[in-house]
């Protein structure tokens, strides 16, 4: 019985990796499409978000099946509960990549007035957070999960920098106020992705931390 259970838990882990790779690709491509002003690609990303949703359902079904078949307790129960909560945050990250792509369609109409470095950097940092959080889950590495949470400070700092840059653009180029406002939204979406990655890391810690919590 236990060996089948262990197989099922391994399968859960591989699906979590698959989902995190899908989202990583979505963030990466959303930022590429944003700066290359590639409307077609942006539309494709919005369409592909459906696949992320399907993957979420697939993982939730595996979790339900495990809960029913194995009636897990202790760390097993926390591992499965954590997966169910993590996919909710992962799915939201997917939505935010799609939201960025929706703005890309509007933003593609005129050339940019600001440098793309910091936004690109931000997306790269959020991707690291996401991948490390899911790796921490699969590798049962609580330290790695804690590092992800600390890493969010980098994303928050970049958010402030990008915001300052955009305010400057608005002040100096009145024709670009709308563009700057849209880019501020992109900035906010990326910052939210960092928050979701933090949530994911917190669930990883919940699943791995064997020290008793007050349960009332």
């Amino acid at each position, binding site marked *: 019985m236990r060996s089948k259970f262990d197989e099922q838990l391994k399968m859960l882990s591989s699906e979590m990796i698959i989902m995190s790779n899908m989202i990583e690709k979505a963030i990466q491509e959303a930022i590429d499409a944003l700066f290359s002003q590639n409307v077609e690609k942006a539309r494709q990303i919005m369409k592909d978000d459906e696949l992320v949703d399907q993957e979420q359902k697939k993982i939730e079904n595996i979790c339900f099946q495990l809960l029913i078949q*194995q009636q897990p*307790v*202790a760390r097993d129960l926390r591992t499965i509960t954590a997966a169910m909560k993590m996919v909710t945050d992962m799915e939201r990250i997917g939505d935010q990549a799609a939201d960025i792509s929706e703005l890309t369609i509007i933003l593609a109409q005129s050339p940019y007035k600001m440098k793309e470095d910091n936004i690109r950097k931000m997306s790269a940092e959020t991707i690291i957070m996401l991948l490390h959080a899911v790796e921490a889950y699969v590798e049962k590495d609580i330290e790695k999960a804690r590092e992800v949470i600390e890493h969010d400070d980098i994303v928050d700092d970049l958010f402030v920098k990008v915001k300052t840059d955009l305010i400057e653009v608005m002040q100096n180029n009145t024709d670009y106020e709308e563009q700057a406002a849209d880019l501020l939204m992109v900035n906010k979406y990326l910052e939210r992705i960092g928050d979701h990655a933090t949530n994911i890391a917190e669930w990883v810690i919940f699943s791995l931390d064997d020290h*008793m919590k007050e*349960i009332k």
Partner: protein
Amino acid sequence: MKENIKISVQDLHLYYGDNHALKGVSMDIKKNSVTAFIGPSGCGKSTFLKTLNRMNDLVDNVSIEGKVFLDGDDIYDAGVDTTILRKKVGMVFQQPNPFPMSIYDNIAYGPRVHGIKDKKTLDKIVEQSLCGAAIFDEVKDRLKKSALGLSGGQQQRICIARALAVQPEVILMDEPTSALDPISTSKIEELMEELKKKYTVVIVTHNMQQAVRVADDTAFFLLGELVEFGDTKNLFSYPRDKRTEDYITGRFG
């Protein structure tokens, strides 16, 4: 002794001949609560349960060291009358074992042994006990019929009613639902919730989900040793001992 502790066991050892079956068990069982004992077969949990009303006295070649306090009095003291002790600490077994007599006489048996003869008093005890075991409505029209004609789940509740009839303080149940279907099991589990309001309930169970559902505290036994004892929700979500975690998550051997 703390006021909310009904039974306090201190460093209890039990030997079946040379076999050291319980190795220094200490535990406080709370009043008006359900306490569950879990562990693999042969771990000593049923043996331990039986030490709580000295049922092991009836087994040959058993020797016991240590103390078991019921409301502060050691039940292994020389002067203790085991009949009175077992009236206070009743027991329900795995297989429903009603006596081959009417439902009424099953329940009235204990009170009659303890000297109650008055018909009205007995009628009242029988009704109250059957109500207490949540079976009165099902049997009230057939009290004079044989208890052996009832279903397994009903028979088990008759046995619980029989235990209640002598007004016990503690009810020990040794795998009370392992021979029952899920519907009867669920009735007995609901009954435990009720019973603990008036009594202290201790159960041995192989069904860990049952322990999670009904027990306030859970004790895990392994090879005659009490490995871990504490709040059920905590034990099943954050077990402190690796052996507990391995057992409850099915990593045996």
